[in-house]
């Protein structure tokens, strides 16, 4: 959990088969209100590339990315 950003929902997307991390985050972000934040925890190297591209495409905002060993946490704000 990041010190300065409070997530309204945490999603564990570690080790899922392709393309489930993106499929699940696309659903999960719609389950919070606009302006709220989802923390997505991933362990797939490809997620590092997929999430920024997904955010750009879906119009959401990645506020912060924390990389710690194999684990990456994305803090994503629902924009629309």
């Amino acid at each position, binding site marked *: 959990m990041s010190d300065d950003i409070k997530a309204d929902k945490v999603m564990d997307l570690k*080790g*899922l*088969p*392709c*393309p*489930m*991390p*993106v*499929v*699940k985050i*696309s*659903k999960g972000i719609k389950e919070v209100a606009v302006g709220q934040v989802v923390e997505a925890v991933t*362990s*797939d*190297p*490809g*997620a*590092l*590339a*997929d999430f*920024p*591209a*997904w955010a*750009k*495409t*879906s119009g959401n905002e990645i506020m912060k*990315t924390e*990389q710690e*060993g*194999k684990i*990456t946490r994305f803090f994503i704000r629902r924009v629309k």
Partner: protein
Amino acid sequence: MDDTTRDELLRLFESKLKRAAKLYLETCSRCGVCVSACHVYASMPQAKYIAAYRAEIVRRIYKRYFTKKGRFWKSLGESKELSELALSELYEAAYSCTGCRRCMVFCPFGIDTQLIMSIAKLLLIGAHAEPEILSLLADTSVAKGESLEIFREGFLESIKTLENEVVERWRVEAGQTPIPVDQKGADLLYVALAGAHSIVPAAVVFNAAKENWTLSFFEAVNFGAFVGDPVKTRQILDRIVNEARRLGVKEVVICECGTAFRVMKSMAKNEPFKVSSITEVHARYIREGRIKLRKNTLEGTVTYHDPCQLARNGGVMDEPRFILRALTDDFAEMSPDPVMNWCCGGGGGLVAMGEDTLDFRMKSASVKADQVKKTGAKILATACENCHTQLSNLNDHYQMGVDVRFLSSMVADALE
């Protein structure tokens, strides 16, 4: 449906009317041979799941708008108006077809229902009625191709975290990078998926075979093909083609992703590199003595599911069997002829649509579950991520009691 939308959809329809498509649309004799060919119909016998029935919806729209008879006598010649209702029928037909092409093998005229369904999918895109998630996935892949700089560093860092795992399983020479990325002068570009399971075992085998290889920045899967969008299919493919050209590799190797392999194999024919599946490459290494495998370390009978896009539609059938025979003396075929193997029921974008399609995927693939059970196998090997997910779901749903394994990781685990 307003006239402008209809005109736009008919323009899209026309763009698909190449020679083969016209032939398929004009040829069906309704002989019924394809009835039992489709796993969906075999599992859920309803007329709407017969291959020729699905195609008939597209065929009737074709007759109505693209043949003289249909244009002049609208009510004659079994023609169909392109309407909202027709669109919902097209959706049901196209997204209950996995594009496995088993029906094509049975049809005396070789009619490709998958190709006819690709017309349906294009019309759905034109009407903004395609599954939203598939377009989003395709757009995400396209966006990745346009913004390598955004993820480059993060990706490289994340690949670094996997290197220990690779070295633990196969020690590399001092100074050698366990997972090389972006290496000019490499012979082979390996295109993986997002997950570590698609990268680590492959890297271990490449290193064991002393391959001069490099990993792609991009994922192999082509969601443009799943959603049936020819423009996005090309854009997604071109990310990898351009990377391969830039690095000057001689061979592009696609990971265990059937659709990615079929699309790359069929669309990159005139490129200065050869296209192979990882399965073909592993078979080659064994044949050439570049890797050696420990035999008979697996417990119980092993069977193999042919991913439709790799086997029936990609021609890779002998290689997985060659690999499996190097791994075990206890291999059981699930179909007397691999060409006739049942589809797992997860293709055509259905697995990528996640839980929304789970119930249908399970019901429509009961014949696959029965086929696996009959082999008595304990290990169910396959060489496609999509099939692996669907087979794992089937394993849980039908309590098949098998261990679903990726063939590539079986090879990596058995290295001598």
